[in-house]
């Protein structure tokens, strides 16, 4: 190696040294007065409906806490980004927030596949990542130290809750399942099958459909041919409506139709889209929030949203952005003034938050990274929603 190269290398080392000294001087993203949080969700592209309102909802919770004086003397400052729900973009956003904006923690993500792309990076950088509103099955199983999520339940929770409800409350024995052929569908199906087998029921049909299906006749005919006592669906909004329409057309309305949360963002719109009131006679769906039964909770959320976003009508998934923000705030409050990322993770692991908004406690542990395991089942007849008396809790094993 010649002199020039040596000199050059030396310069590089010096640079790197200065950098590391600067950055290790204190916890990134934390000053005396503020805590910087990187908040992101899809704000453009096909999946905006999962992103804009939930992100606004999380923002309003942080603003609320700031207006009440902040957390232990510090205000929350948000750096907001658009992750487009793609792996490349989300990873880019995570890297920007960590290495350029120097945020304390990441809070965001509405799509599990995109979040999963950032998992190794988060692990390496040792930065806590709190998911916004993704179901997150693939990102929380197996659990990794820095990633927390599933604040409205995983697909496993929905599949398990609907199966248990079908067998215990509806006395169904023969159960048919229809899900998508993607990660959500896979997790939902696995949990449902495990619960059904455990409780002595029988899975009589498993239909895996593509999310962009245009004629759902064949799978519905297959469902009907299996003569089920109940149908479990993990479909997304459009296929969920198509399913209900065909189910109505083929006169299957005596068979209860049990729909997982993601298929019915706004029940009234769903009912309007299905059109046929007959198809809504025997319809149930999962939900993770108490805003259906408790009017005060609903009003409170809407009022907060209006205050924070006067120009926008809150869309269907608005409330799903709230619990993750509550969990972050609770953790920061418990931590006190002494903040490091490692301490945040340790405190997050001890989270046990009972909020009047949620159907169950938000909990983590050393081996658990999915927050909510208890959901309710709601009967919806096209006009009113009626919450079923029992809550259903996933046991943490079925389908894993």
């Amino acid at each position, binding site marked *: 190696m010649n002199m020039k190269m040596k000199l050059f290398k030396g310069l590089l080392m010096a640079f790197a040294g200065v950098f590391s000294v600067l950055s290790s001087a204190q916890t990134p993203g934390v000053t005396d007065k503020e805590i910087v949080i990187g908040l992101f969700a899809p704000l*453009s*592209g*096909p999946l*905006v*409906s999962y992103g*804009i309102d939930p992100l606004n909802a999380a923002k309003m919770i942080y603003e609320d806490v700031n207006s009440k004086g902040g957390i232990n003397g510090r205000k929350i400052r948000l750096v907001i980004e658009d992750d487009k729900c793609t792996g490349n973009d989300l990873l880019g956003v995570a890297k920007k927030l960590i290495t350029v904006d120097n945020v304390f923690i990441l809070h965001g993500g509405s799509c599990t596949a995109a979040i999963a792309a950032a998992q190794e990076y988060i692990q390496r950088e040792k930065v806590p990542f709190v998911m916004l509103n993704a179901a997150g099955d693939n990102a929380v199983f197996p659990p990794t130290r820095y990633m927390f999520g599933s604040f409205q339940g995983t697909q496993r929770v929905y599949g398990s809750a609907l199966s248990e409800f079908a067998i215990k409350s509806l006395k169904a024995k023969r159960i048919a399942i229809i899900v998508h*052929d993607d990660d959500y569908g896979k997790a939902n199906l696995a949990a449902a099958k495990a619960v059904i087998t455990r409780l002595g029921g029988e899975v009589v049909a498993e*239909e*895996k*459909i*593509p999310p*962009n*299906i*245009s*004629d759902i*006749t*064949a*799978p519905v*005919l*297959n469902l*009907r*041919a299996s003569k089920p006592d109940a149908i479990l669906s993990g479909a997304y*909004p*459009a296929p969920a*409506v*198509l399913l209900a329409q065909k189910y109505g*057309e*083929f*006169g299957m309305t005596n068979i209860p139709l049990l729909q997982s949360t993601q298929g019915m*963002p*706004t029940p009234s*719109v769903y009912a*309007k*889209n299905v*059109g046929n009131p007959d198809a809504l006679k025997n319809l149930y769906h999962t939900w993770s929030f108490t805003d259906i039964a408790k009017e005060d909770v609903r009003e409170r959320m809407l009022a907060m949203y209006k205050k924070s976003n006067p120009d*926008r*009508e809150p*869309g*269907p998934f608005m409330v799903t952005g709230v619990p993750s923000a509550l969990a972050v705030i609770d953790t920061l409050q418990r931590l006190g003034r002494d903040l490091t990322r490692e301490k945040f993770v340790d405190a997050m692991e001890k989270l046990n938050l009972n909020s009047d908004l949620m159907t169950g406690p938000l909990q983590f542990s050393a081996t658990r990274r999915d927050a909510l395991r208890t959901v309710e089942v709601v009967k919806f007849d096209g006009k009113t929603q009626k919450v079923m008396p029992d809550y259903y809790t996933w046991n943490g094993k079925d389908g894993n």
Partner: protein
Amino acid sequence: MGLFNLILQGIISGVVTGCVYALVALSLVIVYKSTDVVNFAGGELVMIGAYIGLLLLMWLDWPYVFIFLITPVFTYALGLVFSRFALEKINRKKTSSNTVLVSFVIATIALSDMLKGIVRVIPFTEEVRRLPPLFSGPPIFLGDLVIQPQDIVIVVVASIVMLMLWLLFGYTLVGKALRATSQNERAASLIGIPVKSVKSAIWGLSATVAGIAGLLLAPKLLMTPDMGNMVMLAFAAAIIGGFSSLPGCVVGGILLGIVQNMVGIFISPQAIAVTPFFVIMLVLLIRPQGFFDKTLAYKKV
């Protein structure tokens, strides 16, 4: 329900959706035949037709039938504008016939992005929407089989549109001008046919057909800004018809509708998504000229 009825029900439903695929295929083929452009925005024209219908329905307090009739006017204008302000300008700058075709296709891809993008901006479209069917009533039962009145309407309207296209192309002066233009542009302009206007009109016509397909499809398939993805089914239908035969499109569309359901029943619903692509590859491998046309798909020199 016996297997026979299962198959029969699959066929009935396949014919109905197949009719709509056929309409979209027609809209692709008439443009290809006369302007050599593969329209990758065909699906988005279907989508925009449905959303225009929905917005009109929300703004205007008119009976749905009127809205059904005036929506295609908007898509007609859209096709016309695209042809005039994009394709013609590109054509004027062309350096060779091969590269200009690539440019045309890219322009349709750009159009597809723009249409999707503009619909996405309306917050209202974040959620799945549906148009009312043109006619609704209690389903008709034939033993175990169910037929929706709405489905009958779809088949009837689609058939009327197909018939009108067939008459237009085969038996009117306009049709002759269209055909002359598509066969030999230079000769057509020599005998006094305004080639540019004819081309724009064809784009308008194609967009009209797509718009009607959108209105028919919206109650059945539901509306999202991405509903244009169904265009691949139409491409497959058009390929069966050799991308030139109008009756071929219709048969191709219906066949595809039925095949999809049969795949769903006998193979796996998971394979439904890949059916149109498989059909495209298969047809191109064994009979690239399609099943309805004697002219070769191979490039003529």
